[in-house]
């Protein structure tokens, strides 16, 4: 049963995942945390950090991690494969259609139209993770270091395009000394 669920969830994500790994975050979060409860919101945040710091496509990393958590070794292979399956079908059966200039122009217009919604999708995934589980002592006033880390990392990433891996390592070091 868990295998079927993993298969279905990640095929869906492979079909609807326009715009790169981050765009899939919201889809994965909804299924994995809210719908099937395979992970808590904290585990999800930890998984994103680990997937970000590990080489390879972030979405494959996340699929493997989710699959492993939900269904062990078999689950991890199945989830990664399911994520690739729509792409495999696309390349095997409709390669002509997909690589024609006309379809290409149509798809790129489609993506342009989707972009504002995808951005909203990613933003919503971030907002959903801003909770008491991921932010220590939020709102209690005695320890707002979580918020400080978040704001500083945001500024470094948004304005200075700082390396995400460096930011994760730095905030890990801060966490080690503060908590």
């Amino acid at each position, binding site marked *: 049963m868990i295998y079927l669920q993993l298969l279905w969830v990640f095929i869906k994500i492979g079909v609807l995942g326009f715009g790169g790994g981050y765009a899939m975050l919201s889809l994965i979060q909804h299924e994995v945390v809210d719908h099937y409860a395979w992970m808590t919101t904290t585990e999800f945040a930890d998984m994103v950090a680990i997937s970000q710091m590990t080489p390879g*496509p972030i979405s494959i990393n996340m699929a493997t991690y989710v699959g492993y958590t939900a269904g062990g070794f078999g689950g991890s292979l199945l989830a990664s494969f399911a994520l690739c399956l729509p792409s495999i079908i696309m390349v095997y059966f409709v390669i002509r259609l997909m690589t024609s200039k006309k379809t290409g122009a149509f798809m790129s217009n489609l993506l342009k139209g989707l972009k504002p919604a995808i951005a909203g999708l*990613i933003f919503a995934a971030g907002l959903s993770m801003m909770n008491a589980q991921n932010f220590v002592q939020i709102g209690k006033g005695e320890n707002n270091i979580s918020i400080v880390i978040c704001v500083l990392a945001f500024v470094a990433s948004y304005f200075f395009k700082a390396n995400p891996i460096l930011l994760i390592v730095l905030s890990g070091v801060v966490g080690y000394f503060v908590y």
Partner: protein
Amino acid sequence: MKIIWQLFSTFFKIGAFTLGGGYAMLSMVEKAVVDKKQWIPSDEFWDMIAIVQSLPGVFAVNTALYVGRRIAGKKGAAAAMLGAILPSIVIILLLATIFREYRDLPVVERIFKGIRPCVVALILAPSLRMIKSAKLNWKTAVIPVVTVALIWWLKVSPAWVILTAIAGSVVYALIINKKVRQKEAEP
């Protein structure tokens, strides 16, 4: 057979050594496929990338599948794809096993307490940059706001939001196509 193995090992190296997701690996793929092995001419490669970028799914996997298929048919596609994802699977399996074993240690918990708010920032920042680069006007600015409200506040499944957005975008893309054709038709 040799080319199949080369495809596998080329994409394996790319999968094992690129940090920072799909787009970071693009220059590595170009170097390997266009410059070093000269499998595909540069202009054809970039035409293909432009199309692959707008397709759904994992960008690195789509690229591997297309390059593999183009050079060595279906077997080539399978070899390139396996090469691209195998390092991820092996490394994540190792890390996940270790992490689940030690995550309750106070040291690990302290480090991750620091990391979690940073992860949130790393998700919010690129989404805002994306909104900025989409050059929204007061009409289209409604789209990301409504998307966030639906998913975050009303807990609507993102799948439905994407499907709705696709329907809207198809209409938009058709209109743009029509406008382009009308312009071309004009003398």
